[in-house]
């Protein structure tokens, strides 16, 4: 799917949506985890955040998702030229992270149906995504293997067709079919003018990475 055209000629198909963050700092007690990180992402672009374990990749993504309040710095996110505050941003982003868990007592379909209601999305969307990632709908979420759970995280993150994807080690635990399915979904997301911030310990063999931040000390 990677288009061969150079970056310059690329004009975003949708009005300007953009994520810009500057000087994001966060510390836990005495330990300063993020010391002024800046970056941005535009439609169709991927911002790759690399760095060793414990360098603050996950903390940065949680701040961008609005799950963690930064001590200092600014995070501005606009969709179709409309700036969103943290509460709105929190509910608009698609988030994939290892610590994301679902209701083990419910089946995969029931989990997605529940979140579809919260996301005000038609339940059929959930079922369609389940097919795309190849997940049995009636399996209890508690009995899923780690690879299956990762697929469910992707299905959940894409439920409400988010413009911005925040992916923390998005391809962990995947087998070949699983990875190719989600890479397809990601490519479609970018082609539709979506943005993505990806955190990964090492650089990823990505078709196109537009900007990069290395949090390594």
């Amino acid at each position, binding site marked *: 799917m990677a288009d061969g055209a150079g970056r310059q000629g690329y004009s975003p198909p949708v009005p300007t949506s953009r994520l810009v963050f500057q000087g994001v700092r966060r510390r*836990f*007690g005495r330990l300063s985890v993020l010391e002024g990180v800046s970056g941005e992402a535009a439609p169709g672009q991927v911002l790759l955040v690399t760095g060793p374990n414990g360098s603050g990749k996950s903390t940065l993504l949680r701040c961008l998702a609005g799950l963690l*309040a930064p*001590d200092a710095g600014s995070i501005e996110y606009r969709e179709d030229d409309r700036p969103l505050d943290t509460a709105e941003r929190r509910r608009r982003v698609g988030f994939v992270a290892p610590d994301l868990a679902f209701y083990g007592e419910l089946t995969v379909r029931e989990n997605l149906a529940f979140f579809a209601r919260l996301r005000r999305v038609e339940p059929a969307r959930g079922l369609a995504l389940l097919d795309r990632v190849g997940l049995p709908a009636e399996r209890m979420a508690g009995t899923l293997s780690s690879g299956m759970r990762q697929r469910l995280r992707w299905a959940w993150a894409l439920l409400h067709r988010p413009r911005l994807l925040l992916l923390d080690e998005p391809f962990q635990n995947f087998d070949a079919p699983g990875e190719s399915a989600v890479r397809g979904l990601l490519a479609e997301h970018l082609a539709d003018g979506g943005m993505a911030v990806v955190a990964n310990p090492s650089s990823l063999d990505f078709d196109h990475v537009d900007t990069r931040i290395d949090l390594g000390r």
Partner: protein
Amino acid sequence: MKNLLAWLLWLWISAVIVGAFYYAPLAMGFLGESSRILFFHVPMAWASFLGFIAAAVWSIRYLRSRNPAHDRAAAAAIELGLLFGVLATVTGAVWARIMWGAYWNWDPRQTSILISLLFYGAYLALRGAIDDQDTRGRLSAAYAILGIVVTPFLFWIVPRITYSLHPEPVINAEGKIEMESRMQHVLYASGLGFAALFFWMHDLACRVAALRERKPAP
């Protein structure tokens, strides 16, 4: 300038102490000189309420600004509120001993203060159980604000219920007894003195807390 104000406060409270014993007469219904403790017991209770109300204000400001200084201020206000609350309870018990012969007779005011101390003691327990500074500030602020919604019920409900439990009329220590004007002068002067003392102690407590955070005072 601050020094001048400080020494003014020293003079003010010294005058209150002297006034409490020489200027104010003992109204009827009071037994013995030691019931003059009233001039200190009541202002301490006021200072305690002042602390809890101030904490709610700082908590609301913290939730808006997320400025750690407001969180520290709210915590310090509650700690002082508890200190004055305990002092008020002790002096109240001493006074009850003098007036009604028993340290604790479930006088409505005693019960209400005691339960509010339980509540704000729980506030400190909550602060102790959360490590992350941001989460601790947020959750403590919410609980302190909940306190200002809930504790007034105590002072409204308990007197009505406790009265119904005590068939014989209970002399309500503060309000009901007509106080001679001179007594009121001393009482309100003492109240003001304790309020000023509260804010001074609060300022010192906040600065200590700020230094302990290894950050310059706000």
